[in-house]
């Protein structure tokens, strides 16, 4: 009998909700998209409401509501940590106890308070944090059987788990526990290099190719012991997260000869080299683990989840080494994905629902387009209510040609179409698009549209059938979670490393050099974070790229998330219009309506909107 399960993740970072019915993913969304507060950790009441609406159900009709974590087990870790660190660590303990004893332990009461029901089960269910990650990776994957590897900062205790999924069942056999954590190690370097923990890890990964990995030996000598099977243990003397409110400490500072870089200050050679070094260490450990998992489980496919699985450079290395025949990564690999994983795990291992495989051999994540959508008539009602001038182009191919023509002229276009993505990457439902052939596109989009650091690369969206034409990659990468080099014959050698040194570490020297015939998406090391676009996943977006190819010969465009720095990705047409008007985008597409910037009325704002969002 069909069961409907609501999964919730909350109170840490990126709270979210997901709804699964009869083992099919019906809806999933992050709270930040509705609340407009980046990484919103609060109870996801808006995301839950959306999921219930999408499923056409009420809280009382849910068969179960499940939380992605076991708060009592987290309390066990908090108390043990306090006992081990005492008499130091009072400040951290005060904060931790207020949070866990004040709020998190009473999640069932929170659910009852907000939803006025605990569903038909009459009680809240709980899954282990890493089991939720494992479920989010295995069940939607295209594999009947697969090895499972989860890696994050920390769950209740586990920071790394290994297991196997087969049909409807998951077993996790081994783990590494707090305080030893690959996620926390990477976060320590993120913080030390002046980026925000929990969000800046992606920037550190993007910075790594600029540097030389000169600190690798020091990291292995002092910070972490790694065994041949990839298991590891940190030397916690160098980390602050056990007994203070920052992730590193004075020992760490001494080891790397100085205080952490101040956020927003100039990035120096040291940060580039640190980023390169920790990225090398992470990749080496992940590869050792992957080889161990392959050998110990005997499985030919691997699924990954947990925040570390968002490190698409490391993922690309696993792919390149061909350790497994198949690799699938949950696109919402961070805590938000725990909502989905907990709902799927409950569906299969609590209610015993049979797993549904996609008959065409692809995954069941539905392209991760699991969030809210707006109909063309809702969009038109919005535009007409505000008297915003627009042109309606209902024919998909005609609209795609119009968008492609604008892209080819160097226009930058905001694009909102279909259901919103679940996970941190924009995949063509809430995206900003540009022409990858133009050398100036990267700087223009970073500085005039995204208002973010100029070193950060942009990703390509490429027709699924053309992936191998542009990149050293022969598999699909629908979720932008794999990095691969631009094909050798397309690369233009620039001597950028020497230029960087000659330029006194000024990255602008090298950022503006063309490194291939698609320079806007080619990072300094010739890598690209590829999104392959399949017509079955997103027809409208596929048609835009197809039309761009018909016009220019290139089946690839620039794709970046539809937001400015510090802002959650846009959710509604109103969010999109506001972002469009505040930036130097030229065109906005809202479903079948096309808007030009120069035809819009001037937007009046009373305050500096840039202060609305805290920089990430």
């Amino acid at each position: 009998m069909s069961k409907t399960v609501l999964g919730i993740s909350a109170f840490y970072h990126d709270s979210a909700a997901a709804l699964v019915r009869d083992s099919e993913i019906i809806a999933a969304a992050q709270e930040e998209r509705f609340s407009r507060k980046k990484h919103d950790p609060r109870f996801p009441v808006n995301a839950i409401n959306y999921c219930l609406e999408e499923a056409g159900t009420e809280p009382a009709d849910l068969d179960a509501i499940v939380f992605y974590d076991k708060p009592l087990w987290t309390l066990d870790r908090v108390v043990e940590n306090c006992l081990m660190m005492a008499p130091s660590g009072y400040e951290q303990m005060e904060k931790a106890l207020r949070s866990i004893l004040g709020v998190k332990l009473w999640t069932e009461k929170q659910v009852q308070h907000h939803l006025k029901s605990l569903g038909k089960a009459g009680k809240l269910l709980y899954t282990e944090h890493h089991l939720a990650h494992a479920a989010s990776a295995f069940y939607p994957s295209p594999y009947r059987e697969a090895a499972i590897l989860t890696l994050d900062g920390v769950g209740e205790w586990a920071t790394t788990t290994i297991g196997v999924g087969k049909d409807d069942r998951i077993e996790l056999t081994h783990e590494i526990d707090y305080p030893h954590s690959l996620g926390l190690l990477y976060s320590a370097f993120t913080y030390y290099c002046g980026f925000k923990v929990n969000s800046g890890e992606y920037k550190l990964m993007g910075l790594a190719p600029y540097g030389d990995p000169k600190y690798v030996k020091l990291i292995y000598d002092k910070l972490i012991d790694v065994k041949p099977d990839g298991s590891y243990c940190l030397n916690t003397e160098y980390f602050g997260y056990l007994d203070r409110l920052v992730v590193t400490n004075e020992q760490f500072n001494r080891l790397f000869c100085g205080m952490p870089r101040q956020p927003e200050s100039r990035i120096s050679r040291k940060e580039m080299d640190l980023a390169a070094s920790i990225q090398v260490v992470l990749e080496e450990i992940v590869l050792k683990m992957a080889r161990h998992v392959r050998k110990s489980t005997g499985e030919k496919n691997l699924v990954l989840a947990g925040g570390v699985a968002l490190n698409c450079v490391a993922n690309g290395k696993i792919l390149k080494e061909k350790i497994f025949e198949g690799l699938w990564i949950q696109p919402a690999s961070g805590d938000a994905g725990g909502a989905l994983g907990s709902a799927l795990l409950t569906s299969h291992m609590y209610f015993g629902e049979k797993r549904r495989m996609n008959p065409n051999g692809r995954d069941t994540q539905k392209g991760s387009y699991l969030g809210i959508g707006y109909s063309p008539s809702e969009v038109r009602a919005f535009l007409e209510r505000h008297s915003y001038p627009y042109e309606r182009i209902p024919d998909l191919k005609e609209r795609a040609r119009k968008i492609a023509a604008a892209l080819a002229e160097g226009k930058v276009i905001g694009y909102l179409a279909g259901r919103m993505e679940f996970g941190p990457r924009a995949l063509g439902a809430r995206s900003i698009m540009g022409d990858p052939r133009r050398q100036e596109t990267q700087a223009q989009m970073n500085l005039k549209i995204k208002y973010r650091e100029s070193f950060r690369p942009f990703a390509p969206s490429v027709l699924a059938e053309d992936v191998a034409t542009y990149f050293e990659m022969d598999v699909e990468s629908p979720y932008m979670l794999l990095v691969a080099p631009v094909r050798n014959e397309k690369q233009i050698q620039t001597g950028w490393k020497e230029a960087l040194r000659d330029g006194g570490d000024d990255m602008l020297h090298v950022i503006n050099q063309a490194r291939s015939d698609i320079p806007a998406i080619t990072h300094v090391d010739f890598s690209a974070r590829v999104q392959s676009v399949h017509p079955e996943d997103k027809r409208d977006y596929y048609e835009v790229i197809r039309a761009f190819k018909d016009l220019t010969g290139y089946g690839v465009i620039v794709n970046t998330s539809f937001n400015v720095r510090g802002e959650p990705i846009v959710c509604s047409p109103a969010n999109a219009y506001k972002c469009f008007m505040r930036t130097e985008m030229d065109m906005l597409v809202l479903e079948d309506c096309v808007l030009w910037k120069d035809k819009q009325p001037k937007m009046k704002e009373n305050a500096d909107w840039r202060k609305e969002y805290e920089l990430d």
Partner: protein
Amino acid sequence: MSSIEVNPQTADTNSKVKKIRSFYDRKLLPVAKSLRDRRLLLFDLTPDPSRSTYYVQRARKTVMPADFEEGGCQSPEDLEVKLQALWKNGGVRGKGAEAGSVMAKLAASIAVLSKELYAVEEQDAEVSPLTYVMF
């Protein structure tokens, strides 16, 4: 608000901080000392080169329906019972009966503290940019 008026939220916060401080000084520190005196380490803080692997086998490899029903609490009384049971069995990771029995002494005072700290609506919803949110 004049300088002599007290913000009720601040007063509430101060009261909670005092309760935590008292728990820390009177309950937690003695238990921590007791564990140290008995040389009971709850987890490793540094690498051990003699080990061949740092992976540990999970006690529970698969998940049963009953497992979904554990992990939360209904009331401070329920919390005390569950903590006692958890720690007398060696904690989540089965750290050993001796350490567990020492820790079990904290269960009642943690339950009392939870009454003081309880808040249905979370007050602190900021994500720290300085450390990984893990508590």
